[in-house]
């Protein structure tokens, strides 16, 4: 029987990757953000996941508007990162878990979700930077990958309620998986930020704190907003919170907050990091 060990939630700003590449994690601008990660590393050492199921959003690397999925599930034996337009150094490749991917896809389609399945898929910084943050200096990633991309780019976006339901269906699929794997869930992006329009630079620390406080104990409360409510409160790219909500849904047991960090700003973004451990409910 597989085990869902918990969820890691973190921002994925490209500048974080640049800071890692330059080795400036201890400089005053960056230290308060990177200081959030030693507790994550200690938790990972004890949780020992073998597989990461990652809810993220593609930023125009693998998907374009000719074929724009609402939800896409990777089912490849291997995933590569690639140039996203800025010629930055590439991230290490990722080993897939296609059998588990197909198990999840079978379960999703059987539960009235309509995913796009991807047997070949490039993954961008929004998946790779959280890996760099979780497993710095790894020669190879210590976990296999099942990537699940959520459309946060083109409206209509899936509703927060639908994203939570997607996560819960993924969680149910993982619970019914026969393998011995220890599975960690990642949700990447956010929190509040806005890159476009006259409101560019918008940040809402009160809303972010509300989200951090609510995600663990009452995700349904976050799912009662619609996507435009989130955009109003968290900025146009703050809607990447959808990835967090979906990831939270995949934690099917009793969750407990292990660590959190919140620091403003990283680039244009209110950066947050949180770990929720997932304890299977004890049978009565």
């Amino acid at each position: 029987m597989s085990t869902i060990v918990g969820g890691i939630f973190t921002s994925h700003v490209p500048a974080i990757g640049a800071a890692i590449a330059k080795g400036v994690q201890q400089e005053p601008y960056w230290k308060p953000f990177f200081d959030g990660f030693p507790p994550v590393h200690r938790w990972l050492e004890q949780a020992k996941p073998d597989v990461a199921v990652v809810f993220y959003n593609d930023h125009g690397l693998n998907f374009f508007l000719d074929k724009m999925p609402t939800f896409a599930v990777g089912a490849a034996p291997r995933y590569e990162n690639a140039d996203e337009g800025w010629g930055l150094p590439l991230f290490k490749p990722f080993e897939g878990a296609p059998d588990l991917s197909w198990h999840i896809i079978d379960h999703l389609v059987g539960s009235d979700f309509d995913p796009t399945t991807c047997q070949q898929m490039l993954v961008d910084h929004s998946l790779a930077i959280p890996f760099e943050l979780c497993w710095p200096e790894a020669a190879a990633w210590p976990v296999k990958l099942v990537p699940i991309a959520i459309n946060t780019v083109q409206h209509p976006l899936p509703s927060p309620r639908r994203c939570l339901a997607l996560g819960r269906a993924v969680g149910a699929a993982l619970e019914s998986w026969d393998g011995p794997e220890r599975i960690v869930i990642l949700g990447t992006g956010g929190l509040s930020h806005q890159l476009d329009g006259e409101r560019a630079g918008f940040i809402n620390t009160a809303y972010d704190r509300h989200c951090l406080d609510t995600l663990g104990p009452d995700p349904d409360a976050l799912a009662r907003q619609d996507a435009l409510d989130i955009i109003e409160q968290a900025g146009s790219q703050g809607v990447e919170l959808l990835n967090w909500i979906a990831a939270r849904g995949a934690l099917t047991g009793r969750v407990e907050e292990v660590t959190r960090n919140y620091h403003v700003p990283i680039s244009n973004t209110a950066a947050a990091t949180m770990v929720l451990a997932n304890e299977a409910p004890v049978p009565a």
Partner: protein
Amino acid sequence: MTSPAASGPAPRRPMSRTIPGTPIFDGAAATQGYALNAMCFSFNDPANREAFRVDEDAYCDRFALTPQQRRAVKDRDILGMIAAGGNIYYLAKLAGIFGLSVQDVGAAQTGMSVEAFKAALLAHQEETA
């Protein structure tokens, strides 16, 4: 890659809800902006970035940008690109060619200096104390 537009962009439908200063990239915007976004998507390939740098006009021709889109690109006018259907996730790749950081892009759209824009971001730090 060519634009699918047969006879110019459709007019943008009115949004049912607006959030001030916050573009919503919906179907109407996506229809209007397809050519511009397709060009920006092509910049994932460094050879295409170089081709744009060498002859910007010819490159815009290749993607059949609308006059509104061409003007906004020529003027490095981010709000103009968005008004012409550009989506920030794709425009970010073009901004990279222009050497603009996300702070530069933010400052340009808000009419602030880059220093003032950065200072406004940093000012939120107090709220997290």
